Protein backbone atom coordinates (compact mmCIF):
# COMPACT_ATOMS: atom_id res chain seq x y z
CA UNK A 1 0.00 0.00 0.00
CA UNK A 2 2.91 2.31 0.73
CA UNK A 3 4.14 2.09 -2.83
CA UNK A 4 0.69 2.80 -4.16
CA UNK A 5 0.24 5.68 -1.77
CA UNK A 6 3.54 7.18 -2.86
CA UNK A 7 2.57 6.65 -6.47
CA UNK A 8 -0.77 8.31 -5.80
CA UNK A 9 0.87 11.39 -4.36
CA UNK A 10 3.54 11.68 -7.02
CA UNK A 11 1.51 10.73 -10.07
CA UNK A 12 -2.02 11.92 -9.41
CA UNK A 13 -1.49 15.25 -11.14
CA UNK A 14 0.22 13.53 -14.10
CA UNK A 15 -2.74 11.17 -14.49
CA UNK A 16 -5.20 14.07 -14.33
CA UNK A 17 -3.25 15.96 -17.01
CA UNK A 18 -2.98 12.82 -19.15
CA UNK A 19 -6.74 12.28 -18.96
CA UNK A 20 -7.54 15.96 -19.48
CA UNK A 21 -5.52 16.01 -22.70
CA UNK A 22 -7.67 13.18 -23.97
CA UNK A 23 -11.15 14.20 -22.88
CA UNK A 24 -10.81 17.99 -22.38
CA UNK A 25 -13.01 18.05 -19.32
CA UNK A 26 -11.20 19.04 -16.11
CA UNK A 27 -13.72 17.74 -13.60
CA UNK A 28 -14.23 14.47 -15.44
CA UNK A 29 -10.47 14.04 -15.69
CA UNK A 30 -10.16 14.29 -11.89
CA UNK A 31 -13.04 11.88 -11.46
CA UNK A 32 -11.46 9.33 -13.76
CA UNK A 33 -8.03 9.79 -12.16
CA UNK A 34 -9.51 8.89 -8.79
CA UNK A 35 -11.21 5.93 -10.39
CA UNK A 36 -7.85 4.78 -11.75
CA UNK A 37 -6.27 4.80 -8.30
CA UNK A 38 -9.28 3.13 -6.70
CA UNK A 39 -8.89 0.31 -9.20
CA UNK A 40 -5.15 0.19 -8.58
CA UNK A 41 -5.77 -0.31 -4.87
CA UNK A 42 -8.15 -3.13 -5.62
CA UNK A 43 -5.84 -4.84 -8.12
CA UNK A 44 -2.42 -4.18 -6.53
CA UNK A 45 -0.65 -4.37 -9.91
CA UNK A 46 2.95 -5.52 -10.15
CA UNK A 47 4.04 -2.55 -12.24
CA UNK A 48 1.74 0.11 -10.86
CA UNK A 49 3.00 3.12 -12.81
CA UNK A 50 2.56 1.52 -16.22
CA UNK A 51 -0.69 -0.03 -15.04
CA UNK A 52 -2.34 3.23 -13.95
CA UNK A 53 -1.60 4.89 -17.28
CA UNK A 54 -2.88 1.86 -19.18
CA UNK A 55 -6.13 1.99 -17.20
CA UNK A 56 -6.30 5.77 -17.60
CA UNK A 57 -5.96 5.40 -21.37
CA UNK A 58 -8.74 2.81 -21.41
CA UNK A 59 -11.03 4.97 -19.29
CA UNK A 60 -10.35 7.96 -21.52
CA UNK A 61 -11.18 5.88 -24.57
CA UNK A 62 -14.45 4.71 -23.02
CA UNK A 63 -15.24 8.27 -22.01
CA UNK A 64 -14.65 9.54 -25.53
CA UNK A 65 -16.89 6.82 -26.97
CA UNK A 66 -19.62 7.62 -24.48
CA UNK A 67 -19.30 11.31 -25.24
CA UNK A 68 -19.68 10.67 -28.95
CA UNK A 69 -22.72 8.57 -28.25
CA UNK A 70 -24.21 11.38 -26.25
CA UNK A 71 -23.37 13.84 -29.03
CA UNK A 72 -21.59 15.79 -26.37
CA UNK A 73 -18.06 15.70 -27.60
CA UNK A 74 -18.25 18.70 -29.89
CA UNK A 75 -19.92 20.74 -27.20
CA UNK A 76 -17.16 19.87 -24.79
CA UNK A 77 -14.48 20.90 -27.24
CA UNK A 78 -16.25 24.13 -27.96
CA UNK A 79 -17.38 25.18 -24.51
CA UNK A 80 -15.27 23.59 -21.89
CA UNK A 81 -11.67 23.29 -22.82
CA UNK A 82 -10.13 25.99 -20.74
CA UNK A 83 -10.63 26.15 -17.02
CA UNK A 84 -6.92 27.07 -16.89
CA UNK A 85 -7.50 30.69 -15.99
CA UNK A 86 -7.22 31.77 -12.43
CA UNK A 87 -10.35 33.52 -11.21
CA UNK A 88 -8.59 36.85 -10.75
CA UNK A 89 -6.49 36.85 -13.90
CA UNK A 90 -6.99 39.87 -16.09
CA UNK A 91 -9.33 39.47 -19.03
CA UNK A 92 -6.55 40.13 -21.51
CA UNK A 93 -4.31 37.47 -20.00
CA UNK A 94 -7.21 35.11 -19.91
CA UNK A 95 -8.09 35.60 -23.56
CA UNK A 96 -4.47 35.23 -24.61
CA UNK A 97 -4.11 32.04 -22.60
CA UNK A 98 -7.35 30.63 -23.96
CA UNK A 99 -6.25 31.30 -27.51
CA UNK A 100 -2.91 29.65 -26.92
CA UNK A 101 -4.52 26.65 -25.29
CA UNK A 102 -6.93 26.27 -28.19
CA UNK A 103 -4.02 26.41 -30.64
CA UNK A 104 -2.01 23.79 -28.77
CA UNK A 105 -5.11 21.65 -28.43
CA UNK A 106 -5.75 21.98 -32.15
CA UNK A 107 -2.14 21.13 -32.97
CA UNK A 108 -2.30 18.03 -30.79
CA UNK A 109 -5.47 16.89 -32.48
CA UNK A 110 -3.70 16.82 -35.86
CA UNK A 111 -1.43 14.02 -34.66
CA UNK A 112 -2.35 10.41 -35.26
CA UNK A 113 -3.75 8.45 -32.30
CA UNK A 114 -0.50 6.53 -31.98
CA UNK A 115 1.67 9.65 -32.02
CA UNK A 116 -0.58 11.39 -29.50
CA UNK A 117 -0.54 8.40 -27.19
CA UNK A 118 3.24 8.07 -27.23
CA UNK A 119 3.78 11.80 -26.76
CA UNK A 120 1.35 12.07 -23.85
CA UNK A 121 2.72 8.97 -22.16
CA UNK A 122 6.25 10.33 -22.47
CA UNK A 123 5.14 13.67 -21.08
CA UNK A 124 3.47 11.86 -18.19
CA UNK A 125 6.88 10.49 -17.24
CA UNK A 126 6.79 6.94 -18.57
CA UNK A 127 10.02 5.36 -19.72
CA UNK A 128 10.53 4.05 -23.25
CA UNK A 129 10.03 0.39 -22.20
CA UNK A 130 6.82 1.34 -20.38
CA UNK A 131 5.54 3.25 -23.40
CA UNK A 132 6.45 0.32 -25.62
CA UNK A 133 4.62 -2.13 -23.37
CA UNK A 134 1.49 0.02 -23.36
CA UNK A 135 1.35 0.87 -27.04
CA UNK A 136 2.61 -2.40 -28.48
CA UNK A 137 5.52 -0.68 -30.17
CA UNK A 138 9.04 -2.03 -30.09
CA UNK A 139 11.22 -0.13 -27.63
CA UNK A 140 13.41 0.98 -30.51
CA UNK A 141 10.41 2.45 -32.31
CA UNK A 142 9.42 4.68 -29.41
CA UNK A 143 12.20 7.16 -30.18
CA UNK A 144 11.20 7.24 -33.85
CA UNK A 145 7.56 7.81 -32.97
CA UNK A 146 8.41 10.49 -30.43
CA UNK A 147 10.69 12.28 -32.89
CA UNK A 148 7.90 12.32 -35.48
CA UNK A 149 5.23 13.34 -32.98
CA UNK A 150 7.26 16.22 -31.59
CA UNK A 151 8.05 17.51 -35.05
CA UNK A 152 4.44 17.29 -36.18
CA UNK A 153 3.14 18.97 -33.06
CA UNK A 154 5.49 21.92 -33.45
CA UNK A 155 4.78 22.19 -37.19
CA UNK A 156 1.03 22.10 -36.62
CA UNK A 157 1.28 24.67 -33.85
CA UNK A 158 3.44 26.99 -35.96
CA UNK A 159 0.96 26.70 -38.82
CA UNK A 160 -1.75 27.97 -36.49
CA UNK A 161 0.37 30.53 -34.68
CA UNK A 162 2.25 31.91 -37.70
CA UNK A 163 0.13 30.95 -40.73
CA UNK A 164 1.80 33.39 -43.13
CA UNK A 165 5.27 32.27 -42.20
CA UNK A 166 4.29 28.61 -42.41
CA UNK A 167 2.77 29.14 -45.85
CA UNK A 168 5.97 30.77 -47.15
CA UNK A 169 8.20 28.07 -45.73
Amino acid sequence: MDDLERLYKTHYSAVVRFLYRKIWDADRAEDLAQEVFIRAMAHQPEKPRAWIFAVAANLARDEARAAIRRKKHLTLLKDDPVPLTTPDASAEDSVERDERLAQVQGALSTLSQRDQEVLLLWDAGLSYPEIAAQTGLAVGAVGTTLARARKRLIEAYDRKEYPAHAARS
Partner: protein
Amino acid sequence: MRHVPEEELHAYLDQALSRSQCVEIETHLARCGHCRAVRDDTAALRDRTTALLATLTPRPLILPPPMAELMSRRPVSVGSRLSVRTRRLGLLAAGVLGAVGAGWLARSVSLPIDVDPPVPMATALPATPLSTPITTVETIAEAPPPPPVSQPRRLELARKPAEDSAPPEAIAPAPELTLVSAVAPDGEGSPGGASVTALPPVAAPAGFDRLWRSVEWEDALVLAGGSLPFINGLPVLGVLLQPGQPGERPVVIVSQQHPSGEILRSIEGPVEKITEFLQRPAEPGLNASEPARTTPDYIESRGVTRRVLRALAVTGRLRADSLTALARAAALR
Protein backbone atom coordinates in the same frame (compact mmCIF):
# COMPACT_ATOMS: atom_id res chain seq x y z
CA MET B 1 31.46 9.00 -40.97
CA ARG B 2 28.03 7.77 -39.91
CA HIS B 3 25.97 10.50 -38.30
CA VAL B 4 23.76 9.87 -35.31
CA PRO B 5 20.15 9.29 -36.47
CA GLU B 6 17.72 11.90 -35.22
CA GLU B 7 15.54 9.41 -33.35
CA GLU B 8 18.62 8.23 -31.48
CA LEU B 9 19.31 11.80 -30.43
CA HIS B 10 15.75 12.01 -29.12
CA ALA B 11 16.33 8.83 -27.12
CA TYR B 12 19.69 10.18 -25.94
CA LEU B 13 18.13 13.43 -24.71
CA ASP B 14 15.30 11.44 -23.10
CA GLN B 15 17.88 9.42 -21.14
CA ALA B 16 16.54 6.27 -22.72
CA LEU B 17 19.84 4.82 -23.90
CA SER B 18 22.31 2.59 -22.10
CA ARG B 19 25.48 4.07 -20.68
CA SER B 20 27.59 2.55 -23.47
CA GLN B 21 25.28 4.00 -26.14
CA CYS B 22 25.51 7.42 -24.48
CA VAL B 23 29.30 7.23 -24.44
CA GLU B 24 29.29 6.27 -28.12
CA ILE B 25 27.06 9.21 -29.02
CA GLU B 26 28.98 11.67 -26.86
CA THR B 27 32.24 10.55 -28.44
CA HIS B 28 30.78 11.14 -31.88
CA LEU B 29 29.30 14.50 -30.89
CA ALA B 30 32.67 15.66 -29.63
CA ARG B 31 34.09 15.50 -33.16
CA CYS B 32 31.06 16.06 -35.38
CA GLY B 33 29.78 19.61 -35.69
CA HIS B 34 26.87 18.53 -37.88
CA CYS B 35 25.52 16.15 -35.25
CA ARG B 36 26.05 18.72 -32.51
CA ALA B 37 23.90 21.14 -34.49
CA VAL B 38 21.24 18.46 -34.99
CA ARG B 39 21.39 17.65 -31.28
CA ASP B 40 20.84 21.32 -30.41
CA ASP B 41 17.88 21.51 -32.82
CA THR B 42 16.47 18.30 -31.36
CA ALA B 43 16.87 19.61 -27.82
CA ALA B 44 15.11 22.85 -28.80
CA LEU B 45 12.30 20.86 -30.45
CA ARG B 46 11.99 18.74 -27.33
CA ASP B 47 11.91 21.79 -25.08
CA ARG B 48 9.23 23.45 -27.19
CA THR B 49 7.12 20.31 -27.13
CA THR B 50 7.38 20.15 -23.35
CA ALA B 51 6.47 23.82 -23.05
CA LEU B 52 3.46 23.47 -25.37
CA LEU B 53 2.17 20.39 -23.57
CA ALA B 54 2.64 22.17 -20.24
CA THR B 55 -0.07 24.61 -21.27
CA LEU B 56 -2.55 21.74 -21.58
CA THR B 57 -3.27 21.40 -17.90
CA PRO B 58 -6.72 21.69 -16.35
CA ARG B 59 -5.49 23.80 -13.43
CA PRO B 60 -2.18 25.35 -12.45
CA LEU B 61 -2.15 23.32 -9.25
CA ILE B 62 -3.54 19.79 -9.07
CA LEU B 63 -3.57 18.26 -5.62
CA PRO B 64 -4.71 14.72 -4.91
CA PRO B 65 -7.62 14.37 -2.49
CA PRO B 66 -6.66 12.74 0.81
CA MET B 67 -5.82 9.07 0.48
CA ALA B 68 -8.34 8.27 3.24
CA GLU B 69 -11.11 9.74 1.12
CA LEU B 70 -10.07 7.55 -1.78
CA MET B 71 -9.93 4.51 0.48
CA SER B 72 -13.44 5.21 1.74
CA ARG B 73 -14.73 5.06 -1.80
CA ARG B 74 -13.35 1.61 -2.39
CA PRO B 75 -16.47 -0.37 -1.52
CA VAL B 76 -18.74 2.06 -3.35
CA SER B 77 -19.63 1.13 -6.87
CA VAL B 78 -18.46 3.44 -9.58
CA GLY B 79 -21.90 4.21 -10.87
CA SER B 80 -23.22 5.45 -7.57
CA ARG B 81 -20.44 7.92 -6.99
CA LEU B 82 -21.29 11.50 -7.64
CA SER B 83 -19.02 13.19 -10.11
CA VAL B 84 -16.98 16.25 -9.13
CA ARG B 85 -19.17 18.40 -11.35
CA THR B 86 -22.38 17.03 -9.86
CA ARG B 87 -21.10 17.60 -6.34
CA ARG B 88 -20.10 21.15 -7.21
CA LEU B 89 -23.42 21.84 -8.84
CA GLY B 90 -25.13 20.46 -5.74
CA LEU B 91 -23.08 22.69 -3.48
CA LEU B 92 -23.80 25.68 -5.69
CA ALA B 93 -27.51 24.91 -5.73
CA ALA B 94 -27.52 24.46 -1.96
CA GLY B 95 -25.73 27.78 -1.56
CA VAL B 96 -28.18 29.60 -3.82
CA LEU B 97 -31.18 28.01 -2.11
CA GLY B 98 -29.74 28.88 1.29
CA ALA B 99 -29.18 32.49 0.29
CA VAL B 100 -32.66 32.81 -1.24
CA GLY B 101 -34.24 31.15 1.79
CA ALA B 102 -32.36 33.38 4.20
CA GLY B 103 -33.36 36.45 2.21
CA TRP B 104 -36.99 35.40 2.21
CA LEU B 105 -36.87 34.75 5.94
CA ALA B 106 -35.21 38.09 6.57
CA ARG B 107 -37.87 39.91 4.59
CA SER B 108 -40.73 37.99 6.14
CA VAL B 109 -39.78 38.99 9.68
CA SER B 110 -38.95 42.57 8.54
CA LEU B 111 -35.81 42.65 10.61
CA PRO B 112 -32.29 43.38 9.38
CA ILE B 113 -30.50 40.08 9.38
CA ASP B 114 -26.91 39.50 8.33
CA VAL B 115 -27.06 36.62 5.92
CA ASP B 116 -23.87 34.69 5.55
CA PRO B 117 -22.87 34.22 1.94
CA PRO B 118 -22.93 30.70 0.61
CA VAL B 119 -19.86 28.69 1.48
CA PRO B 120 -17.40 28.89 -1.40
CA MET B 121 -17.05 25.56 -3.09
CA ALA B 122 -13.31 25.47 -2.67
CA THR B 123 -13.54 25.60 1.11
CA ALA B 124 -16.18 22.90 1.10
CA LEU B 125 -13.74 20.51 -0.45
CA PRO B 126 -11.62 18.45 1.92
CA ALA B 127 -8.13 19.69 2.61
CA THR B 128 -5.12 17.59 1.87
CA PRO B 129 -3.77 16.05 5.08
CA LEU B 130 -0.19 16.11 6.18
CA SER B 131 1.21 12.75 5.24
CA THR B 132 4.66 13.12 6.73
CA PRO B 133 5.80 15.98 8.91
CA ILE B 134 8.41 18.05 7.22
CA THR B 135 11.62 18.24 9.14
CA THR B 136 13.53 21.45 9.20
CA VAL B 137 17.02 20.09 9.30
CA GLU B 138 18.89 23.31 9.50
CA THR B 139 19.31 26.67 7.93
CA ILE B 140 21.99 29.01 6.80
CA ALA B 141 19.80 31.92 7.69
CA GLU B 142 20.30 35.11 9.50
CA ALA B 143 16.79 36.29 8.74
CA PRO B 144 13.59 34.86 10.24
CA PRO B 145 11.87 32.17 8.17
CA PRO B 146 10.60 33.77 4.98
CA PRO B 147 6.88 33.75 4.26
CA PRO B 148 5.69 30.33 3.19
CA VAL B 149 4.25 29.62 -0.23
CA SER B 150 0.90 31.14 -0.94
CA GLN B 151 -1.47 28.19 -0.99
CA PRO B 152 -3.24 27.65 2.32
CA ARG B 153 -2.86 23.91 1.95
CA ARG B 154 0.87 24.32 1.61
CA LEU B 155 0.90 26.31 4.80
CA GLU B 156 -0.61 23.37 6.59
CA LEU B 157 1.90 21.05 5.06
CA ALA B 158 4.80 23.26 6.00
CA ARG B 159 4.09 23.04 9.72
CA LYS B 160 4.88 20.31 12.14
CA PRO B 161 1.66 19.16 13.80
CA ALA B 162 3.03 19.83 17.26
CA GLU B 163 4.06 23.34 16.34
CA ASP B 164 0.71 24.64 15.26
CA SER B 165 0.33 26.97 18.18
CA ALA B 166 3.96 27.35 19.19
CA PRO B 167 6.06 30.31 18.09
CA PRO B 168 8.72 29.53 15.50
CA GLU B 169 11.85 28.26 17.14
CA ALA B 170 15.25 29.79 16.53
CA ILE B 171 17.21 27.77 14.04
CA ALA B 172 20.94 27.53 14.35
CA PRO B 173 23.05 28.01 11.24
CA ALA B 174 25.08 25.07 10.04
CA PRO B 175 27.04 24.39 6.90
CA GLU B 176 25.68 21.04 5.76
CA LEU B 177 22.41 19.25 5.40
CA THR B 178 21.89 15.61 6.23
CA LEU B 179 19.86 13.42 3.99
CA VAL B 180 16.24 12.90 4.80
CA SER B 181 15.21 11.02 1.73
CA ALA B 182 17.25 8.58 -0.29
CA VAL B 183 14.59 7.10 -2.48
CA ALA B 184 13.86 7.50 -6.11
CA PRO B 185 10.41 8.99 -6.62
CA ASP B 186 9.07 6.16 -8.68
CA GLY B 187 11.26 3.27 -7.71
CA GLU B 188 12.95 3.20 -11.07
CA GLY B 189 15.60 5.78 -10.58
CA SER B 190 18.14 3.39 -9.27
CA PRO B 191 19.51 1.17 -12.03
CA GLY B 192 18.63 -2.43 -11.40
CA GLY B 193 16.54 -1.44 -8.43
CA ALA B 194 19.64 -1.24 -6.22
CA SER B 195 19.19 0.80 -3.11
CA VAL B 196 21.26 3.90 -2.58
CA THR B 197 23.65 3.34 0.29
CA ALA B 198 26.68 4.99 1.82
CA LEU B 199 25.92 8.27 0.18
CA PRO B 200 27.79 11.40 1.08
CA PRO B 201 25.75 14.08 2.80
CA VAL B 202 24.10 16.58 0.51
CA ALA B 203 25.79 19.87 1.18
CA ALA B 204 23.79 23.04 0.96
CA PRO B 205 24.91 24.84 -2.16
CA ALA B 206 27.06 27.88 -1.75
CA GLY B 207 25.43 31.08 -2.89
CA PHE B 208 22.12 30.85 -1.09
CA ASP B 209 21.79 32.40 2.30
CA ARG B 210 18.14 31.99 3.18
CA LEU B 211 16.26 29.23 4.85
CA TRP B 212 16.52 25.84 3.23
CA ARG B 213 14.43 22.87 4.18
CA SER B 214 15.23 19.29 3.40
CA VAL B 215 11.99 17.46 2.66
CA GLU B 216 10.72 14.13 1.45
CA TRP B 217 10.07 13.84 -2.26
CA GLU B 218 6.30 13.59 -2.02
CA ASP B 219 6.02 16.52 0.39
CA ALA B 220 8.34 18.58 -1.76
CA LEU B 221 6.16 17.73 -4.71
CA VAL B 222 3.14 19.20 -2.98
CA LEU B 223 5.00 22.25 -1.71
CA ALA B 224 6.44 22.93 -5.13
CA GLY B 225 3.02 22.89 -6.74
CA GLY B 226 3.08 19.40 -8.19
CA SER B 227 6.35 19.45 -10.10
CA LEU B 228 10.00 19.01 -9.27
CA PRO B 229 13.06 19.01 -11.53
CA PHE B 230 14.05 15.42 -12.18
CA ILE B 231 16.58 13.73 -14.45
CA ASN B 232 15.00 10.48 -15.48
CA GLY B 233 16.80 7.33 -14.46
CA LEU B 234 18.96 8.75 -11.67
CA PRO B 235 18.29 8.02 -7.99
CA VAL B 236 17.25 10.97 -5.88
CA LEU B 237 19.42 11.71 -2.87
CA GLY B 238 17.47 14.57 -1.40
CA VAL B 239 15.34 17.62 -2.02
CA LEU B 240 15.94 21.10 -0.67
CA LEU B 241 13.34 23.85 -0.74
CA GLN B 242 13.59 27.55 -0.17
CA PRO B 243 10.22 29.28 0.13
CA GLY B 244 9.60 32.01 -2.41
CA GLN B 245 7.73 35.27 -2.16
CA PRO B 246 3.97 35.10 -1.50
CA GLY B 247 2.29 33.49 -4.46
CA GLU B 248 5.57 32.23 -5.84
CA ARG B 249 6.62 28.59 -6.00
CA PRO B 250 9.73 27.78 -3.97
CA VAL B 251 13.27 27.43 -5.27
CA VAL B 252 13.99 23.71 -5.46
CA ILE B 253 17.20 21.75 -5.51
CA VAL B 254 16.96 18.06 -6.33
CA SER B 255 20.17 16.10 -5.80
CA GLN B 256 20.61 12.96 -7.87
CA GLN B 257 23.48 10.57 -8.31
CA HIS B 258 25.03 10.11 -11.72
CA PRO B 259 26.19 6.57 -12.61
CA SER B 260 29.75 7.87 -12.37
CA GLY B 261 29.12 8.62 -8.69
CA GLU B 262 29.00 12.36 -9.15
CA ILE B 263 26.19 14.23 -7.48
CA LEU B 264 24.13 16.39 -9.80
CA ARG B 265 21.94 19.15 -8.50
CA SER B 266 18.99 20.39 -10.52
CA ILE B 267 18.08 23.88 -9.37
CA GLU B 268 14.73 25.29 -10.42
CA GLY B 269 13.37 28.68 -9.49
CA PRO B 270 12.84 32.27 -10.61
CA VAL B 271 15.27 33.24 -13.37
CA GLU B 272 16.89 36.00 -11.28
CA LYS B 273 17.76 33.59 -8.49
CA ILE B 274 19.09 30.96 -10.85
CA THR B 275 21.14 33.55 -12.75
CA GLU B 276 22.47 34.98 -9.52
CA PHE B 277 23.43 31.51 -8.36
CA LEU B 278 25.19 30.67 -11.61
CA GLN B 279 27.16 33.92 -11.56
CA ARG B 280 28.66 33.33 -8.15
CA PRO B 281 32.15 31.78 -7.99
CA ALA B 282 31.97 28.02 -7.92
CA GLU B 283 34.21 25.42 -6.36
CA PRO B 284 37.04 24.26 -8.64
CA GLY B 285 35.81 21.60 -11.06
CA LEU B 286 32.15 22.36 -10.44
CA ASN B 287 30.35 23.30 -13.65
CA ALA B 288 26.86 24.45 -14.43
CA SER B 289 24.58 24.01 -17.40
CA GLU B 290 22.99 26.77 -19.35
CA PRO B 291 19.64 27.57 -17.75
CA ALA B 292 16.58 26.08 -19.43
CA ARG B 293 13.22 27.80 -19.17
CA THR B 294 10.46 26.14 -17.12
CA THR B 295 6.83 26.97 -16.45
CA PRO B 296 6.47 30.55 -15.16
CA ASP B 297 4.55 31.62 -12.06
CA TYR B 298 1.53 33.85 -12.45
CA ILE B 299 1.27 35.92 -9.29
CA GLU B 300 -1.84 37.85 -8.48
CA SER B 301 -1.21 41.00 -6.48
CA ARG B 302 -3.56 43.95 -6.02
CA GLY B 303 -5.61 42.97 -9.03
CA VAL B 304 -2.58 42.70 -11.30
CA THR B 305 -1.23 39.41 -12.58
CA ARG B 306 2.55 39.35 -12.72
CA ARG B 307 4.50 36.69 -14.62
CA VAL B 308 7.67 35.43 -12.97
CA LEU B 309 9.89 33.54 -15.37
CA ARG B 310 11.53 30.43 -14.00
CA ALA B 311 14.48 28.40 -15.13
CA LEU B 312 16.29 25.19 -14.39
CA ALA B 313 20.03 24.57 -14.26
CA VAL B 314 22.07 21.49 -13.43
CA THR B 315 25.37 21.69 -11.58
CA GLY B 316 27.97 19.01 -11.03
CA ARG B 317 31.48 17.90 -11.79
CA LEU B 318 30.75 16.99 -15.38
CA ARG B 319 31.50 18.93 -18.55
CA ALA B 320 29.31 21.97 -19.04
CA ASP B 321 27.84 20.70 -22.33
CA SER B 322 26.94 17.39 -20.70
CA LEU B 323 25.23 19.30 -17.91
CA THR B 324 23.40 21.40 -20.46
CA ALA B 325 22.19 18.25 -22.20
CA LEU B 326 21.06 16.92 -18.82
CA ALA B 327 19.30 20.19 -18.01
CA ARG B 328 17.42 19.91 -21.29
CA ALA B 329 16.64 16.29 -20.55
CA ALA B 330 15.53 17.13 -17.02
CA ALA B 331 11.84 17.63 -16.76
CA LEU B 332 9.49 18.91 -14.14
CA ARG B 333 7.93 15.77 -12.74
